[in-house]
């Protein structure tokens, strides 16, 4: 998946950003897919076929990781709802792309579809939450949609609250692990350096000022 944000921000249905090679590998599993352009694939309805439920194993290739092998389980309605909620959490800004521009809904599908205990534990809450939310956002007008999304933040219903918190946590994790996320949060590492000079005078001064306030 590319970390480069396409422009302008999308206003139509969410379009999966998995690469063509992966999409073709999923055909017969997820359903018929149509390549509509570089890196963009639109899924048709599921047509059955054997689901792949295996993990990546104990010795996966690390330098060029292969895409997660398991079949995706979200319906288009769930994926579209995930896209709306993900962009409510992290919409585009003047300098940073939206969650959907980074393909976060596809990642969420990868996550809830995974055959591992932690992800399986998330599956029920996320899928049920998306199903419940879809009724209020998929065919709603802008006002009703915003009201439904905002209501998630303050919901007193435990399941709803849990769903929102977990969905937001996954979205945030998925977003900030991308290059665009690094830029937005101010992560400037992962580059080779001849030496480590330590923090700048500006950073040191800021720390000293804070330490002084603490009496240290």
């Amino acid at each position, binding site marked *: 998946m590319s970390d480069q944000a396409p422009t302008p921000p999308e206003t139509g249905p969410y379009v999966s950003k998995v690469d063509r090679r992966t999409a073709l590998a999923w055909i017969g599993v997820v359903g018929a897919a149509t390549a509509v352009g570089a890196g963009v694939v639109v899924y048709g309805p599921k047509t059955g076929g054997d689901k792949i439920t295996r993990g990546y194993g*104990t010795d996966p290739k690390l*330098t060029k*990781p292969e895409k997660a092998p398991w079949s995706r389980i979200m319906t288009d309605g769930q994926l579209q709802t995930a896209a709306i909620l993900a962009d409510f959490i992290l919409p585009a800004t003047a300098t940073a792309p939206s969650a959907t521009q980074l393909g976060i809904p596809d990642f969420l599908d990868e996550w809830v579809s995974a055959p591992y205990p932690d992800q399986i534990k998330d599956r029920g809450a996320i899928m049920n939450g998306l199903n419940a939310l879809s009724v209020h956002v998929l065919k709603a007008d802008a006002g009703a949609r915003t009201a439904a999304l905002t209501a998630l933040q303050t919901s007193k219903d435990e399941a709803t609250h849990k769903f929102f918190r977990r969905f937001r946590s996954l979205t945030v*994790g998925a977003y900030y*692990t991308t290059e665009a996320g690094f830029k937005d949060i101010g992560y400037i590492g992962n580059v080779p*350096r001849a030496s480590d000079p*330590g923090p700048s005078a500006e950073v*040191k001064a800021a*720390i000293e000022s804070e330490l002084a306030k603490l009496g240290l």
Partner: protein
Amino acid sequence: MATDTYDVIIVGSGAGGGMSAYHLTRSGLRVLMLEAGRDYDPTTETPMFNTNAEAPLRGVGTPDKPFGFYDATVDGGWEVPNEPYTVAPGSEPFIWWRPRMLGGRTNHWGRIALRFGPLDFKPYSRDGLGYDWPITYDDVAPWYDKTEKLIGVSGAAAARNLLNTPDSPPGCLMPSAPPRAFEIFYERAFRKMGIPVIPMHGAVVTGQMEGRNTCLFATPCGRGCAIGANFQSTTVLLPPAMATGNLAIRTDALVYQVDMNKAGRATGVSFVDRKTGEHHSVAAKSVVLAAGSGETARILLNSKTAAFPDGLCNTHGMVGRYLMDSVGTGVTGQFPSMEGLPPTNDDGQGTQHTYVPWWGYEKQKALGFARGYHIEIGGGRHMPSMGMAGLLDKGDVSVGDDLRAKLRDRFGSMIGFDGRGEMIPNDDCYCEIDPVAKDKWGIPVLRFHWKWGEHETNQAAHAVKTFLEVIDKLGGKPQGKVETEGHRAISKGGEMIHEIGTARMGHNDKDSVVDQYGKSWAVPNLFIMDGATMVSSPDKNPTLSILALAWRSADNLANLAKQGAL
């Protein structure tokens, strides 16, 4: 292969096996190394600079890769496919980390390379608990010097002469990179408490070193290092050993038995090829076990003869006994003072740049536990992971610009304090052969027994109390549920991956399994050169000492060979 004649068979390719092979091959001995895991090449297999977004599930740990997708552990972790182990009913939890790859755990290890100190070799003399080693710090010091110069260790500093915290002589260490923002910050709280903060000794090449690449000050050491700038057996020990022409390596060879003749000498070993399931026996004039403390004990216990019905070298029932790990406990704090700092590159040199050595040697009685811990402190603006939302307050529900601003502010404001402490050996911690369970090839497996003592749980409680005090002094908030009661705060047995001491060294064949050079008392040409020979489990991480002791032991073996004693 059966027709070849080797001087030495080495079982295992990690710190002990790698160092043994390095010295023995360079001493002119013909060596066959048997490794249970697959061949592994860090130069082509290390995912340096890969981002989490490139990995399935953003690189989070799964049962297939428990320490994360990019961790340099192949076919292993807390469970190894087809190779179970058991924990005895009624035991406290014990977990056992194993990889199945050339170089073993040296590929992913934390690179913390602290010397044991003078008191660590004579703990019984100090306080009447545990057991003394048959050697002193002075016996090992020259081998620490040589080992540090060979593997490349950072942390050079002016001598401090802190009790039981050896300074390395000039010329052994390279300078560490300067303290990072969070390291400057936390140091001031310890200083106020009268507790020293000093440079970490890390097995990372931070300066110019002949024949080695310098660290790139980026990308985590736990993935391994494609340019060999940190210590891995596979980049530092095995290539020069291979270059002698005296080393043959066979991988996927799971050794399960030392073969013996009627005269009571080892003739070689038997192994099963993990890929084909075929059994093989290979011969050599002597055998070195360095399979890791658990696996080494398992091989001995599964090698039964008429003279050793309970396992080789086990006439006194000591094999598998005195199993130890480090005491582990930790608390993380969030620090408003660190919020909103200008972006700074905290990738660093892989290990922490500074740490806190144990400071309480002289008030141990008043503290209520006999042995201490050092503090490893992590923090900074590390490459974002799936846990990023953990930066937010528990009840936070923000979205949009508000959410972005909070995350940006708090990025780098978490600091984690981890105690790593000494455990005193006790009668309730040991491994034995499970009477029923077997691995895929029918070889009996280990059954572990574990119970922390009061000295350890009291130590863990003290560590938590210390961390809370430091966090408070720094104006921070402890994160998550903090366990203040020692039994709850302490790690599981084995969890620190410092399990050692199943075939300890000693003064004679009554009090130990091997002599000070790892030579078994019972079989004149059988040697043990891994952490199994350790007599105590100091707070200092064991790898550097395993390397230094293996070199010392291998030198003794080479001398015996020269004298024709083998």
